């Protein structure tokens, strides 16, 4: 699919109300703090209804109270447009004028954002890795999106029930086990594919013989057993301590944890491999490639990874690549300064 137009009002420091894009590589060039990341973030929000990191309401230009991001996308089967409201409160997503939920938007449009921050996927808190998996699976399967949302709500209700003696804990436990097992099963199934693509990608980038392993921790065959084993800790802490909401992605190289033993470079290549898995699974799901957003390729100092990123962008039907200098072979170039975008430097 192709991002044809990006419109915005009051998104961070961006000033240009409307931008148009074509196929191939579009370079976004500017100095530090010019607004390159903001531009890619706006495109990602318009295409997915989500931010890679942080809260949507924080993207409203300082001093303003509301704004929107809107994109027009050309799919193989026609043109769709989205609009995402930025004001605090209930998230407002429109697809061709109709209010939809995030996972419904994911059926129409898709983007993958690769940023230098992705290294946090490896070194950051488990919630980031869970977020990677849950976000991806929710886009691949509406059933997962719904189950996961219900599961999260049931965990909250069950945690509240643990603190109130008359709250019918038993029924919440029953729902927790049922939904938790379903979420866990879907996760395990999807992880097989993620792991396979990520491992292949890692090998391609590094030329290394240390294989990348991606597996799930805290995935229980049956939550009922895990729950009864954790009863003591649960009672002491008053919260549900087992289940998919506590699971983590275990990333290994040659069998050893990248989180614990990996070098900085190994961590970056691992994170990049996870993003490529995302790109490839979303391509498969949509039967056309998502929009590839590559933020700050100039921050990538490793020659092998930089080569790979540029190859990935060149292969993609559409890639928007930002940096303090232009990538080679761009089909179009945009120059950004103080949030203002121009076609000439």
């Amino acid at each position, binding site marked *: 699919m192709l991002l044809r137009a990006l419109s915005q009002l009051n998104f961070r420091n961006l000033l240009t109300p409307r931008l148009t894009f074509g196929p191939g590589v579009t370079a976004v060039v500017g100095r530090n703090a010019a607004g390159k990341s903001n531009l890619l973030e706006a495109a990602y929000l318009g295409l997915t209804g989500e931010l890679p990191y942080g809260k949507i309401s924080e993207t409203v230009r300082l001093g303003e109270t509301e704004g929107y991001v809107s994109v027009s996308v050309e799919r193989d089967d026609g043109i769709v447009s989205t609009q995402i409201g930025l004001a605090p409160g209930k998230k407002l997503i429109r697809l061709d004028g109709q209010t939809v939920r995030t996972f419904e938007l994911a059926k129409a449009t898709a983007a993958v954002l690769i940023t230098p921050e992705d290294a946090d996927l490896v070194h950051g808190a488990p919630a980031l890795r869970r977020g990677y998996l849950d976000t991806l699976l929710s886009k691949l399967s509406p*059933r997962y999106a719904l189950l996961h949302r219900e599961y999260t*709500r049931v965990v909250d*209700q069950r945690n509240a029930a643990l603190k*109130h003696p008359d709250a*019918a804990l038993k*029924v919440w436990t*029953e*729902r927790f086990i049922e939904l938790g097992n379903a979420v866990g099963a879907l996760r395990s199934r999807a992880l097989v594919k993620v792991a396979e693509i990520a491992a292949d990608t890692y090998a391609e980038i590094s030329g290394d013989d240390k294989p990348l392993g991606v597996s799930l921790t805290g995935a229980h065959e049956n939550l009922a057993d895990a729950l009864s084993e954790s009863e003591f800790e649960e009672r002491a802490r008053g919260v549900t301590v087992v289940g998919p909401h506590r699971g983590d992605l275990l990333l290994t190289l040659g069998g050893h944890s990248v989180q614990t033993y990996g070098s900085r470079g190994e961590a970056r290549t691992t994170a990049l491999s996870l993003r490529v898995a995302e790109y490839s699974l979303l391509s498969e799901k949509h039967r056309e490639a998502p929009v590839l957003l590559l933020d700050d390729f100039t921050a990538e100092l490793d020659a092998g990874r930089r080569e790979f990123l540029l190859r990935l962008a060149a292969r993609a039907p559409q890639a928007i690549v930002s940096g303090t200098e232009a990538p080679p072979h761009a089909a179009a170039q945009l120059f950004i300064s103080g949030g203002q975008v121009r076609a000439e430097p």
Partner: protein
Amino acid sequence: MRYPPALTQLIRELGRLPGIGPKSAQRLAFHLFNQPDDDVRGLAEALLNAKGSLRQCEVCFNITDEARCAVCTDPQRTQAIVCVVEEPADLLAIERSGEYDGLYHVLHGALSPMNGVGPDQLTIQPLLARLKDVEEVILATATTVEGEATAMYLARLLGEIKVPTSRIAYGLPVGGDLEYVDEVTLGRAISNRRMV
């Protein structure tokens, strides 16, 4: 500038109504202020009248202005089936379908520990007490997490005392082409299918 206390209080009271945020409350307050005195008096009287004459049906907890509601006192209705709903509005929705001629039971909510709602906060005890000659209970709570948990809770309870219990089927919108139905609805319709 500060609003006069009477206005602040009106905004605060309106803001406590469900679905009314601070902004809407303010808009409503100014709207009321701009209405003729008679209209405002009419509204105030309607509120007090409603509150004064309306109560919960002593059998099913539906809203009524008598001791028993219109459904419970209608001899034409099948007495042996009770349909359990969360709110009086759900009862009205089912009535509008014209498909149901049994009785109801209004829970006035659904289980939600986060909001301090356990079984004792719902009309579950009175429900159990009225099931002597009942042949079927239909659970028509919402498909929300809370509604499903409430249905499951009641199903277990009713199973213990051997009252036949069914859950209403959430299925496809009538007249819709299958290909335009979203996967989730379709999935639910398939898993809730029944023999014909």
